């Protein structure tokens, strides 16, 4: 047997020359061998394009194999030699009129593959002839030739009237011609979503249904997928179509079966007779189950689709749960999908069997699968009230007996959710959990355990000692999530148990607020501290507020998304459980969204489906604790109805404001946990800061267009006294963005230098995350300002680099009030004296037509390190004098803010700033104007 592999072996020098000689030889066998060698060289990536003219000369031959080889060469190199390729046109056109249909078709097929405009023009005539060719093989090839031409030159196809010709061919006697025509028309329609090029109406419907029976397997798929876009006129028509489609369910080809199921599911929406619906559902179940015996890859696609089917028609496979039990030798991706489907199908009658399976899976070796199995036990417990006991038993059993640490830890995470769903029902097992305290090393498990301890601290002996020994000791080494959880749990414990626990609470609050760099932790620490100092009862109301109950989702995909995905069954969208626009970047296919703003929530939903929401994670303890602590507190305080006395208390005690401000800074605070010690004083900043308007970053630093879909918006802020860049990172691309970034600032006016920038996790498509990059002022920095426009000082040139986005440069703007020095103060007489001395020539004034309420404005200014020197009231006018310093130029500035209510009921403000050098005043006034104005 002659083996072609010998053609691969020539790699000597001068082989091109040798090919050339052979190609021009008179011996046909020699020629053929030469071209085989050339194709072999092409396959391994050798450039043989310089032989183009020599190869073309061999195009005119009666040897079909030779012809095919030459064509193969042409397809590859025409693009790089468009002028020479034109030489081939004559032979092509001649071949399209050959007596042998095979040659005609071959020439048509190849011409279409040569993506050179000049050749495409010459394709029109042969194509027209081909579409009317007596031989169906030529016709079906010509039909796809139209698709090829449309890809290169859509206008030509339209102008030449090929689309109408294709529509006529839908009635062709040959099913292959029909199915290829459908495929081509559907493709052309798909790239023109706004236009009506090919819409199936009754006439087309009948033609397609007629062809369906006789088609090849692929042709059936084309037709079924096309029919999925048809909207039946009424229930009768839907049933009529379904009747014709149902036999396809017995086809051996999985693609045919899945496309049939899709079409039937869509038709069911139009049916009114419940008996028909039941009948068709019953018919769909067995073929779907059969897909589970297919090859693993197809099994995977089928399982992803079955997942959709079950969510759409929950009853369809209700009795078939056993077929989804995992086998030892199933690939991991199949096991994960089966487990997901088991969770959709689990109900009271089958829970015992499912639970036995899950226990079995929890002893397997694949970490990811084992974890999912353990989580599934938790999902069962939350989904089925009657099964909770059994599930908890199973989990306790795992904790007692499993020799694998991650099983124990995963079980604890799951038990936390069960505790939330069934409060006070399974307290007995806490002791068992406590036995495992030492073995916990995963943050999520730790956080879960801490949540449980905090929640049930009144049921445990010496909770403070447990916290102290296991968690508080290494507080600073824990991850932020665990730290937050410790903080909340300890506060809960204090509120529940109280006696003896105060020192520990004090210690944790101090660690959180004073020794931590994490602004979230500090914020939460301060909120608790102030709450505790204000009133224990209020604190109880806020911290120990009842939480919303959690439920296990019966579906994992939102109904709107599901309705979008069902018509996409069998396609990639159904495999990813994401709408096509989220993974297709092809500009031609960018479907305009009907409703703006729809895309974002959908994408979020999708990623949720991709990483299925495990039972109750959406409302898990950590989240809940976060909400209960921060949101509840902030909201309650902002609304003022939970703390009625505080706002009014704030007014008569302006003198203590400075002292209160001290609490914001990490200077020693009054003994916080003693509720009566510092009542009103501590409360002022709460009203001031707790009600501060939440500003989302507005400045687009890095636009998605420049950074492959990564978008960064951000502003400099002073948060809790810490200067930083508050940013929102969004992933609008289709890829996962790695969390590590190189982030640097160039030399800038105020000497701002950033710390590192890292996202909490890799950013999946469609997700966004807030990032706070802490910044410092370079010590001993001299502002390079020559007295020109002071605003140049504010510009901070930045550079960012990431494995995904590459390097990007952009500018940010830092406002002066963000680089103020903390702790500035001045006596009233000194203020008045220096304010007068600077005079009006050093003053910058801004009129702000609509500002926040007075207290909010003052809170905002105080948070920017401005010191309130005095306040006076003249009729309805409130004038506040403030003082601030900045390290830049070692300068100080004096602010006079006059607030006046407007007739519209809002508040206007005139801000005047005096400073030396006066550029500082300009910057401060600008900065204050932005800060106080309501958007």
């Amino acid at each position, binding site marked *: 047997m002659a083996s072609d592999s010998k053609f691969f072996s020539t790699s000597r020098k001068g082989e091109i020359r040798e090919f050339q000689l052979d190609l021009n030889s008179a011996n046909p066998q020699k020629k053929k061998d030469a071209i085989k060698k050339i194709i072999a060289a092409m396959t391994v990536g050798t450039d043989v394009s310089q032989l183009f003219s020599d190869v073309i000369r061999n195009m005119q031959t009666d040897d079909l194999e030779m012809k095919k080889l030459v064509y193969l060469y042409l397809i590859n190199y025409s693009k790089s030699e468009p002028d020479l390729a034109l030489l081939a046109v004559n032979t092509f056109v001649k071949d399209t009129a050959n007596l042998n249909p095979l040659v005609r078709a071959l020439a048509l097929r190849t011409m279409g593959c040569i993506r050179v405009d000049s050749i495409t023009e010459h394709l029109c005539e042969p194509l027209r002839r081909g579409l009317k060719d007596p031989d*169906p093989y030529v016709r079906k090839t010509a039909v796809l030739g139209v698709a090829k031409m449309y890809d290169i030159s859509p206008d030509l196809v339209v102008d030449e009237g090929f689309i109408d010709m294709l529509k006529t061919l839908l009635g062709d006697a040959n099913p292959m011609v029909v199915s290829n025509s459908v495929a081509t028309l559907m493709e052309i329609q798909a790239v023109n979503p706004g236009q009506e090029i090919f819409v199936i109406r009754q006439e087309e419907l009948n033609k397609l249904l007629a062809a369906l029976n006789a088609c090849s397997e692929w042709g059936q*798929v084309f037709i079924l997928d096309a029919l999925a876009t048809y909207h039946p006129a009424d229930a009768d028509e839907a049933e009529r179509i379904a009747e014709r489609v149902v036999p396809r369910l017995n086809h051996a080809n999985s693609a045919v079966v899945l496309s049939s199921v899709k079409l039937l599911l869509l038709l069911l929406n139009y049916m009114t007779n419940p008996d028909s619906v039941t009948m068709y559902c019953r018919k769909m179940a067995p073929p779907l189950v059969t897909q589970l015996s297919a090859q693993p*890859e197809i099994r995977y696609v089928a399982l992803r689709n079955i997942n959709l089917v079950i969510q759409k028609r929950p009853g369809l496979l209700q009795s078939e749960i056993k077929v989804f039990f995992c086998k030892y030798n199933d690939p991991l991706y199949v096991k994960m999908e089966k487990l997901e489907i088991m969770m959709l199908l689990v109900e009271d009658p089958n829970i015992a069997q499912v639970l036995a399976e899950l226990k079995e899976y929890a002893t397997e070796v694949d970490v990811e699968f084992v974890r999912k199995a353990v989580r599934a036990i938790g999902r069962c417990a939350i989904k089925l009230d009657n099964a909770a006991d059994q599930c908890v038993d199973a989990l306790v059993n795992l904790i007692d007996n499993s020799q694998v640490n991650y099983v124990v830890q995963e079980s604890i995470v799951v038990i936390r959710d069960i505790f939330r769903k069934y409060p006070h029902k399974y307290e007995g097992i806490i002791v068992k959990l406590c036995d495992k305290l030492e073995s916990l090393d995963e943050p999520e498990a730790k956080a879960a355990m801490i949540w449980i301890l905090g929640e049930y601290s009144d049921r445990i002996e010496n909770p403070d000692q447990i916290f102290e020994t296991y968690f508080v000791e290494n507080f600073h080494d824990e991850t932020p999530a665990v730290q937050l959880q410790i903080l909340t749990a300890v506060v809960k414990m204090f509120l529940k148990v109280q006696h003896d626990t105060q020192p520990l609470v004090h210690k944790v609050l101090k660690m959180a607020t004073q020794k931590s760099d994490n602004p979230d932790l500090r914020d939460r620490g301060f909120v608790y501290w102030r709450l505790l100092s204000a009133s224990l009862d209020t604190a109880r109301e806020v911290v120990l507020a009842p939480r919303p109950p959690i439920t296990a989702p019966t579906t994992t995909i939102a109904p709107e998304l599901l309705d979008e995905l069902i018509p*996409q069954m069998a396609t990639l969208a159904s495999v990813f459980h994401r709408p096509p626009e989220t993974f297709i970047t092809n500009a031609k296919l960018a479907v305009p969204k009907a409703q703006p703003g729809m895309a974002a929530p959908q994408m979020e939903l999708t990623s949720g489906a991709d990483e299925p929401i495990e039972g109750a994670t959406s409302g898990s303890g950590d989240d809940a604790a976060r909400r209960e602590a921060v949101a509840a507190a902030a909201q309650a305080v902002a609304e003022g109805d939970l703390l009625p006395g505080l706002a009014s208390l704030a007014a008569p005690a302006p003198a203590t404001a400075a002292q209160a401000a001290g609490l914001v800074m990490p200077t020693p605070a009054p003994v916080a946990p003693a509720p009566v010690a510092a009542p009103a004083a501590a409360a002022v900043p709460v009203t001031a800061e707790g009600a501060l308007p939440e500003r989302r970053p507005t400045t687009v630093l890095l636009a998605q267009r420049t950074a492959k879909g990564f978008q960064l918006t951000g502003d400099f802020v002073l948060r809790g006294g810490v200067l930083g860049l508050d940013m929102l990172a969004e992933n609008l691309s289709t890829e996962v963005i790695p969390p590590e970034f190189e982030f640097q600032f160039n030399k800038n006016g105020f000497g701002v230098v950033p710390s590192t920038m890292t996202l909490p996790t890799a950013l999946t498509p469609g997700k966004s995350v807030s990032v706070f990059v802490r910044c410092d002022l370079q010590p001993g920095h001299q502002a390079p300002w020559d007295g020109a426009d002071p605003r140049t000082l504010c510009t901070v040139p930045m550079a960012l680099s990431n494995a995904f986005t590459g390097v990007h440069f952009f500018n940010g703007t830092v406002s002066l009030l963000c680089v103020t020095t903390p702790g500035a103060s001045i006596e009233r007489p000194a203020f008045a004296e220096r304010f007068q001395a600077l005079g009006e020539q050093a003053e910058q004034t801004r009129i702000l037509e609509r500002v926040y309420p007075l207290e909010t404005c003052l809170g905002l200014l105080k948070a920017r390190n401005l010191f309130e020197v005095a306040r006076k009231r003249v009729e309805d006018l409130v004038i506040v004098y403030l003082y601030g310093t900045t390290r830049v130029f070692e300068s100080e500035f004096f602010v006079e803010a006059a607030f006046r209510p407007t007739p519209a009921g809002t508040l206007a403000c005139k801000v005047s700033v005096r400073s030396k050098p006066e550029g500082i005043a300009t910057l401060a006034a600008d900065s204050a104007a932005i800060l106080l104005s309501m958007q």
Partner: protein
Amino acid sequence: MCVSAIFVLDLQGKVILCRNYRGDVPLSAADKFVERVVEEEESQVKPVFTEGGITYTYIKHTNLYFLAFTTRNANAAMVLMFLYRLVETFQTYFNKLEEESIRDNFVIVYELMDEMMDFGYPQSCDSQVLQTTIRSNRLGPASQQKRGPQAPPTGIISWRQEGIRYKQNQVFLDVIEQVNLLVSSTGTPLYSEIVGSLVMNCELSGMPDLKLGLNDKLVFEHMQMESAGPNPQLEQARQKAVDLEDVRFHQCVRLAKFDTDRTISFVPPDGKFELMSYRVSKATLKPLIWVENTVEKHAGSRVEFNVKLSSHFKPRSQANNVEVIIPVPPDCDSPDTECSIGSCVYAPERDALVWSIKQLQGGKQYLLKAQLGLPSVQNEEERMKRPPITVKFEIPYFTLSGIQVRYLKVLEEKLNYQSLPWVRYLTKSGDYQLRQADPEGTASGSMRMSGTPAPQSRGVGAMAQGVGSSSRHR
């Protein structure tokens, strides 16, 4: 809705061959695939994934990856089916499909890829049809006539060409049933199903029209409906008939006809093909071969297996080539086996004992006793593995479901010849798995007896910590 390009790569990710159907995917896209699949842990990667606007769909066959690129929302099931069809076709053409055979036949491979797919749309994939235009060296002499190349049939019967002639017209039909079984570690069958397939080898001239009759329950129900009044004979036949849960047919079978009256009628392709497959799942199905295994560990250094095998089929039937594969801990030594039938060997490369029995009669019971030395040091993770026991067997002249061919009629109107139908039956093991009970559970008694001081619970706790530290290392 279609494929952009198809690549064939070796296991290292080197491109052996590619056909870029649409030219909208850069050839460098294959590098991304290599990064994900070859360099990452393969089990973590799904068979369909998307990156940078390109979707990768792949299957693996021997030492090759078949990879399809798409830039649109293609029909994933169709792409995968096509890749499998491509592999099948290459197999019929080259006998053995591996890297070498692709290189040896690259011209034919290119021809096939162009014939089977055009502009990313799958076209005709029947090997018989393809052979009318594309001849391989291997099949060349075998194909019947030397005719000039002609256009392949695209008509209603696209899978068969005209003018086939055989001296002796005969048709062979193999009814093969595979039994899939999953038994829980407590010994209860979780589910069992029969996947049957009818493989036909057709050596018939002309364009024959075939009709196949099975003892399908629905056929009899249909006949009962047709015949007026009760018919006891029919009722009896119906009782014995088989309830086929799902039937899948080769594309040659007229599905609409089957849907109306359950008649299986078709014009077959030439040569060998799978005519139909079906599934019968019976929750109460009695396992044909049952295996019970008890494991005892002796002081952690030796492990003892007691395996009981029983055959639950009729004594006049006989299972051939029975193989019971009993997974054992890795790195065992000094095997000592004793069995009452057949032979048993320790296969260290599979970490299993393989008990082979050439012929096993129905209704019997046999025992195997095996002892193995355990290694002194064991990887915790390895130790955790408890693969199920698997059994392989073949029982000829027998179908578990009871399916039978009632008739196979051949009708060729023009030639009107006599033909010989041959039918064979075979039942064999498919995915036949019996999960093993936790060895710790059964061994705990003996552990304590042999004087291991630690009570079980504390021992387990200590081990759990051990695992924790080892998992941290990874």
